[in-house]
């Protein structure tokens, strides 16, 4: 069981470690900047408040002079929601299409394994980087924050990562669904990046407007790092909606792949 998942996940280990190192490095860099941001206090806060509403909500910069608000704005809204979201969408986009394009899928399809299982296990293999980074980052974040003499509630940091998992699973699912539709990897990868960035933007620009409901199609609507780390508000329902959406994307991907010609 899970042969395909193990084989694929093993090949993702190096990429996952690289990602972890890069994100940790960026995190430490920013955290070490925080004392000077905090010192300039009011000036920065005024600057943040003078920005357009949409921009403020896009990067959650309204409480940038506290360590929680600072991390929410500089790390989570940007790195986690946007960059990491784009990264896993890109991974998902290559998951099946890359194997079809290269012809690697042939020796796999010729074995007694069902197509549905191939898709499910490939998706599970993508969960490896998602879970690994969310397990290890809370430790890195707490260490970085402690090292500059600040502190954050441990539960908030943990929930920040727990609730980011469903969001990233949806992002990977969007990539996967595109991946089973195309024979060339670069198309679903690029389209996936466009779709996720589009959804992020849609959610952002509609916030606080009359058409705010339109942004509800975006997975970013259901994961709000700033609310978690600044206000200790955990959107459990949002997390469950994302889990259901990820499952829906996985089922749709498997069903399409089962029917299509390869």
């Amino acid at each position, binding site marked *: 069981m899970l*042969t*395909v998942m193990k*084989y694929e996940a*093993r*090949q993702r280990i190096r990429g996952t470690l690289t990602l972890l190192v890069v994100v940790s490095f960026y995190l430490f860099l920013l955290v070490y900047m925080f004392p000077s941001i905090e010192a300039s206090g009011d000036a920065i806060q005024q600057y943040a408040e003078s920005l357009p509403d949409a921009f403020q909500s896009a990067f959650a910069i309204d409480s940038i002079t506290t360590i929680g608000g600072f991390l929410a704005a500089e790390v989570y809204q940007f790195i986690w929601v946007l960059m990491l979201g784009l990264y896993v969408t890109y991974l998902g986009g290559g998951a099946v299409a890359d194997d079809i394009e*290269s*012809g*690697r899928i*042939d*020796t*796999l*399809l*010729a*074995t*007694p*394994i*069902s*197509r549905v299982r191939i898709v499910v296990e490939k998706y599970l293999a993508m969960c490896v980087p998602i879970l690994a980074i969310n397990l290890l980052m809370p430790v890195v974040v707490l260490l970085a924050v402690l090292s500059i003499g600040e502190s954050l509630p441990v539960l908030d940091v943990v929930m920040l990562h727990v609730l980011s998992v469903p969001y990233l699973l949806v992002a990977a699912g969007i990539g996967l669904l595109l991946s089973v539709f195309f024979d060339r990897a670069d198309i679903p990868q690029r389209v996936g990046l466009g779709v996720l960035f589009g959804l992020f933007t849609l959610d952002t620009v509609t916030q606080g407007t009359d058409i705010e409901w339109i942004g509800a199609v975006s997975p970013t609507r259901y994961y709000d790092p700033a609310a978690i780390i600044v206000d200790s508000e955990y959107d459990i329902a949002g997390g469950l909606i994302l889990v259901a959406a990820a499952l829906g994307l996985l089922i749709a991907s498997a069903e399409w792949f*089962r029917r299509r*010609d*390869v």
Partner: protein
Amino acid sequence: MGVIDVTGLSKTFGETVAVDDLNFEVERGEIFGYLGPNGAGKTTTIRTLLGFLSPTSGTASVLGADVRDAKALREARRRIGYLPGELSFSESVTGRSFLEYQGDLKGAARLDEMTDLFDPPLDRKIRGYSSGNRQMLGLIQTFMHDPDLVIMDEPTSGLDPLKQEVLNDFLREERSAGTTIFFSSHVLGEVRRACDRVGIIRDGALVALEDVESLLRKGGKRVRVHTDEPLREDDLDLEGVVEFEQVGTVTSFTFTGDYNELLASLSAYSLVDMEIDEPPLEEIFMHYYGGNND
């Protein structure tokens, strides 16, 4: 019922008809050559037999499983070995981990035997493999689970002549042990050396189905002679001379007649050089299986 039974099989991609109303049967324990030029529909046929593509109309059964029945075909695939025409692997893994992976998916009863016969550097990453090593890795995975039916798409490409011979010997042994082998190729010589019976596919349609001997008799040989004096076509008053071409003292033609008569008539000339070779595949099609390339 044959090991492979193809009945009225057609596959179209949009407007393009890739294979058109194919009918043939492959018996247990034979090496069946599936011969045709590139783009004739060989790979489409194979991919349909394995269930990668679904037929547009008609069907086929493989080891008793209808190719339209995904579940039955999945069970049948336990007993099928497949060598793709364009082999591709994850480049960052070693040959050994690829084989372990394949073994977990379908079994590895004959892995050791196969790695003795074909010996790519298993502990090296596939990224560093030559095309011959890749092909050997592909052959190992084709046979490692002791399949009853083996489907190979252009199996000798990339193999050096020595390994090609190893493969041909191995295939003959497998056939004697009852394994059925379906072997596609665009090279007549390859099929001649390895196969018992041949189906010829051209533009998606099966144009001939016969044993190798009669195919070769019809196909004849390409003869090229270099004489002191230009050879005149009238002098070669022989049955079975076609495609006569001449440039100065070099003459070439395809010959399907009696070799003794050919040598007798050539003995009137002083020969500088002479070659007798397999005819090009296209020529067989043109002269024996339905005319021009239209």
